[in-house]
């Protein structure tokens, strides 16, 4: 016994890679036997073309750390961040995340490991949370319909501008911008407008209201202003409308519990952030932006929209609606390139509103604005001038003495205040600002504390500093869901009730091709909620964020190393934004050389729709390159398209391995052809997880790539976000990568996100993954992922044809099963198989992408052999069922496939009158007796939902 303990104490800790990778040596040996290879190395050598193999396997990554070592290092980094109390504001406010939400949502794999709810039958919980979010935003903004989140406020403003141009009756290319807009929003607007030919005109609306002969397609108003000023924009909005323009208003949601809503002021579009609704600042992100529109503009909405439809039994069911607006269908004609949004954070914000309710939110807002009033009085008492008499939570001061002195004294007392110029500062308060904080700041402002009140008066008559005409009188959040869950018990159970409806990685494999649903390890998630990472303002001084900057610097260098690039920007908040940043870098590069005419972007027909949508937003013209019958880029067509554009070729966007899940043999010939014609090569890094440790983009012709940290590098999908889409480039493009005007260090231009480092709060996840895997572990993960995909392909091939394969008949990290022959022979569709998999306890694979009528399967390295076998068993059994339909055993319109999925209710209520037994419906294989997932709804009627658009919480009677 004693000897065992001493052994345990000195033995090396368990290897994290062996925890992350689901298949051990024994399982891998079994799988390799089925494929006829001796080792994973041999398999990968056979699968990956020699022409791209690593030039040099050496890596700068440190050797793998254990889980406890990695956590200790993260603790050390965290300790180098200093959490000063932020009064900076500027769109980021400290907030109190209710612990019941932290524990049951943010730290709960049932929420954070779920995928985007494209399969509505297994996503009803998060779809309900998102429709709560939409209802919350629509109610507070006073508009008719809100989407399910944008990436942040500033990108939402850009989306609002683009929406205005699509929807406006004006032919003008001018967009009017509030001079009192947030600085980061101004910077983003400038960067994005230029690329798509929009001119921005800044105006201080109070000084120079829009003239009657205005010629703009739209106008942007910040409400309240960045300076804190509260004013009535009704006249400005009226002037914009009078000449056919669209009014876009960025509004602070908390202020809207007290202020007249944008919708009531006449706005067509409202945008903003929901960060202060219980989502930590996190040094800038992630958090959910929002966008709402008046009715009539819903088809112009960017991003995801949840609507109510009905299932096969006529019961109400949620689903993503109007998907044909989006990039995955409409490609270069999409309303936006946004794909991954900020679902997990939108869920948190919606639950903050569910928990507090309308009364609780209003009380918070009243407390906040009373605190601002207190500081305004203190400032006056201290001899400063309060610049705007009307405000909500932010006051701008003309200082009685040097602004720097005030900022410094506040800093020494533990507070961050925003310096505007030599004699102006700005102070912003939030729900965390305490009485002690206010007294301390009043002291710094020079108020005479002997005569000044020690406590903030709890005024409910706010007309002393908010204009009476702007005090909100309309109701909001009247739906029962916002008025029921006041006790923590009730809230905890509501969150559990919703989570139980959903299928996430905590139930089983999510074999979604192109989505990479691998393990999000608990250790990787640990640091996310540490206050040293979560309670940091994005514009905190450099001295406060040394730990963050060190972590970011290491991560940038590691990512550059594994991809073969020279520079990395972590700023893009999703793959779509990384694509855009990379293409904008290419555009800027060409223009810097006088090649202004290079605007054509070649995109293979197999590309993800986001590629085309991003190219358009980068001011490029999309030319599609054909694919051959093997699914590869048609080299002949590529050369022809290059020849057609000798002087205007800007770039080729190509995904590697391809979206068909194949290592294309000719990739070098492809990248060479583009370079010879003066074009740049953008390699979409969506499938990097099939390459890591075996090849580097930068070594086989890539000039720039984006990576998806939420795929290859373990940031959880969160039900559709957060994502991080770093952009990596060769040195010649490095000067054009995203910087930020308010960044603590480094480049200041080309921003694509509101915050300098995008979503730093979740970067410790990727840092921990790489730190614990090391170069060898990453390589092993790639090998295990490719082995698993090929194992599934070889085992399922005799039942379903594998559509594409590359060298030696091998696939990469995913495989496409062609269901079209089955559909032709039996009438059973790809939908039927996908929905039937739910009855077998699986999330469906990717349906009809990139080829209609097929399923794309990606098991990832994290699934163990038992789970792979369970999936094979299900797919084989489903094939037998389809054959029974073809053989006439079951009618084409009444069989377990066409009726899938089966709810408990559907097999219990009433007489069983189907052609197959109940047991077959819900327990088709014996293992389900022990572990059964019950879908809460039957198959959702997609068309009904689109034709009968309803995108807010339905009344409770609907579920009776």
């Amino acid at each position, binding site marked *: 016994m004693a000897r065992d303990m001493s052994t345990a104490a000195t033995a090396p800790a368990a290897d994290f890679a062996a925890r992350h990778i689901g298949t051990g040596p024994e399982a891998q040996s079994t799988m390799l036997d089925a494929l006829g290879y001796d080792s994973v190395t041999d398999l990968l050598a056979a699968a990956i073309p020699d022409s791209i193999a690593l030039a040099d396997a050496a890596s700068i990554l440190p050797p793998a750390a254990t889980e406890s070592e990695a956590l200790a290092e993260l603790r050390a980094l965290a300790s180098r961040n200093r959490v000063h109390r932020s009064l900076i504001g500027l769109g980021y406010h400290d907030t109190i995340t209710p612990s019941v939400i932290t524990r049951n949502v943010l730290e709960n794999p049932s929420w954070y490991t779920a995928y985007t709810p494209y399969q509505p039958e297994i996503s009803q919980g998060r779809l309900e949370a998102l429709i709560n979010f939409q209802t919350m935003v629509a109610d507070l903004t006073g508009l008719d319909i809100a989407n399910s989140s944008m990436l942040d406020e500033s990108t939402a403003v850009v989306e609002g501008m683009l929406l205005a141009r699509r929807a406006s009756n004006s032919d003008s290319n001018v967009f009017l911008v509030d001079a009192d807009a947030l600085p980061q929003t101004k910077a983003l607007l400038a960067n994005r407008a230029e690329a798509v030919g929009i001119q921005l005109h800044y105006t201080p609306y109070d000084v120079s209201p829009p003239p009657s002969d205005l010629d703009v397609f739209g106008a942007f108003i910040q409400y309240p202003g960045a300076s804190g000023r509260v004013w009535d924009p009704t006249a400005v909005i009226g002037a914009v409308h009078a000449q056919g323009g669209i009014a876009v208003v960025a509004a602070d949601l908390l202020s809207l519990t007290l202020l007249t809503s944008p919708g009531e002021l006449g706005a067509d579009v409202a945008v903003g952030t929901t960060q202060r609704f219980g989502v930590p600042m996190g040094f800038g992100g992630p958090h959910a932006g929002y966008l709402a529109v008046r009715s009539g503009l819903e*088809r112009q909405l960017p991003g995801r929209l949840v609507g109510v439809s009905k299932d096969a039994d006529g019961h109400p069911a949620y689903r993503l609606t109007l*998907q*044909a607006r989006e990039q995955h269908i409409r490609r270069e004609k999409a309303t936006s390139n946004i794909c991954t949004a900020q679902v997990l954070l939108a869920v948190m914000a919606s639950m903050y509103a569910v928990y507090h309710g309308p009364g609780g939110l209003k009380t918070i807002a009243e407390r906040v604005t009373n605190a601002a009033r207190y500081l305004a009085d203190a400032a006056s008492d201290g001899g400063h001038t309060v610049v705007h008499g009307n405000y909500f939570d932010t006051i701008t001061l003309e200082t009685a003495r040097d602004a720097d002195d005030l900022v410094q004294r506040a800093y020494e007392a533990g507070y961050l205040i925003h310096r505007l110029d030599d004699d102006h500062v700005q102070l912003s308060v939030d729900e965390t600002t305490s009485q002690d904080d206010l007294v301390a700041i009043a002291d710094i402002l020079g108020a005479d504390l002997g005569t000044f009140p020690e406590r903030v008066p709890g005024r409910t008559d706010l007309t002393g500093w908010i204009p009476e005409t702007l005090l909100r009188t309309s109701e909001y959040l009247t739906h029962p869901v916002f008025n029921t869950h006041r006790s923590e018990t009730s809230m905890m159970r509501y969150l559990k009730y919703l989570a139980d409806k959903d299928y996430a990685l905590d139930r089983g494999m999510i074999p979604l091709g192109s989505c990479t649903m691998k393990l999000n390890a608990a250790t990787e998630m640990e640091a996310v909620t540490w206050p040293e990472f979560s309670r940091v303002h994005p514009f905190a001084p450099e001295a406060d964020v040394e730990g963050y900057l060190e972590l970011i610097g290491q991560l940038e260098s590691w990512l550059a190393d594994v991809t073969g690039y020279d520079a990395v920007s972590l700023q893009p908040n999703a793959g779509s934004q990384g694509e855009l940043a990379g293409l904008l870098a290419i555009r800027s590069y060409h223009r810097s050389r006088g090649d202004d005419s290079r605007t054509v972007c070649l995109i293979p027909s197999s590309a993800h729709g986001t590629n085309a949508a991003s190219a358009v937003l980068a001011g490029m013209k999309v030319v599609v390159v054909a694919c051959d019958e093997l699914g590869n880029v048609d080299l002949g067509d590529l050369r022809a398209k290059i020849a057609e554009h000798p002087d205007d070729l800007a770039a080729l966007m190509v995904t590697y391995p391809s979206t068909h899940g194949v290592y294309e043999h000719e990739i070098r010939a492809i990248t060479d052809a583009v370079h010879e014609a003066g074009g740049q090569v953008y390699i979409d890094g969506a499938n990097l997880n099939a390459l890591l440790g075996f090849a580097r983009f930068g070594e086989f012709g890539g000039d720039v790539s984006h990576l998806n940290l939420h795929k290859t590098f373990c940031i959880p999908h969160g039900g559709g976000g957060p994502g991080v889409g770093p952009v990596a480039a060769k040195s010649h493009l490095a000067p054009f990568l995203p910087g930020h005007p308010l960044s603590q260090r480094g480049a200041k231009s080309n921003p694509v996100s509101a915050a300098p480092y995008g979503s730093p709060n979740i970067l410790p996840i990727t840092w921990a993954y790489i730190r614990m895997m090391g170069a060898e572990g990453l390589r092993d993960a790639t090998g295990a992922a490719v082995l698993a995909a090929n194992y599934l392909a070889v085992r399922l091939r005799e039942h379903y044809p594998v559509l594409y394969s590359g060298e030696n008949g091998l696939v990469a990290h995913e495989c496409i099963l062609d269901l079209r022959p089955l559909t032709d022979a039996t009438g059973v569709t790809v939908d039927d198989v996908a929905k039937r998999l739910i009855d077998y306890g699986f999330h469906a694979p990717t349906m009809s992408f990139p080829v209609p009528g097929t399923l794309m399967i990606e098991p990832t390295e994290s699934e163990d052999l038992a789970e792979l076998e369970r999936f094979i068993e299900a797919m084989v059994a489903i094939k037998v069922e389809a054959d029974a339909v073809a053989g006439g055993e079951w009618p084409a319109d009444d069989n377990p496939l066409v009726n899938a999925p089966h709810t408990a209710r559907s097999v219990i209520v009433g007489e069983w009158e189907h052609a197959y037994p109940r047991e077959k419906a819900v327990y088709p294989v014996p293992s389900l007796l022990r572990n059964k997932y019950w879908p809460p709804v039957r198959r959702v009627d997609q068309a009904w939902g*689109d034709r009968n658009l309803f995108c807010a919480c339905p009344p409770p009677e609907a579920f009776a």
Partner: protein
Amino acid sequence: MPNYTGSADKADRKYTSEHEWLDISGTSATIGITDYAADKLGDVVFVELPKVGSTVQSGKVVGEIESTKSVGELFAPVDGTVTAANTEVVDSPQLVNEDPFGAGWMITVEVADASVFDAADLMDFDAYTALVGE
């Protein structure tokens, strides 16, 4: 203009490679999409048509037909002026699936001269049937 009745036999109509049909009468043609196109699109949920009185140009997109999973474009097969647009199909997009050759018609276009139809690259029923491999 009275609403289109869709009475013409399919065999008597003309077709385009964009899977549209034309029911031609003098200098006027009513246009819709074929059952093949409607089937490929799937459940149509939204139809957007050009305004009556607007001019259309051969080969240009004049409308959209959106399903739950894809977007089809309505191309003008000839140069002309829109004299009627089917408001019923806008209100009830499922008509495109239920009756593509009748109640699911899209627009009627008036051309300058009947010879425009001869000059356009239109297929007869047999040629179109061969195209879609039926």
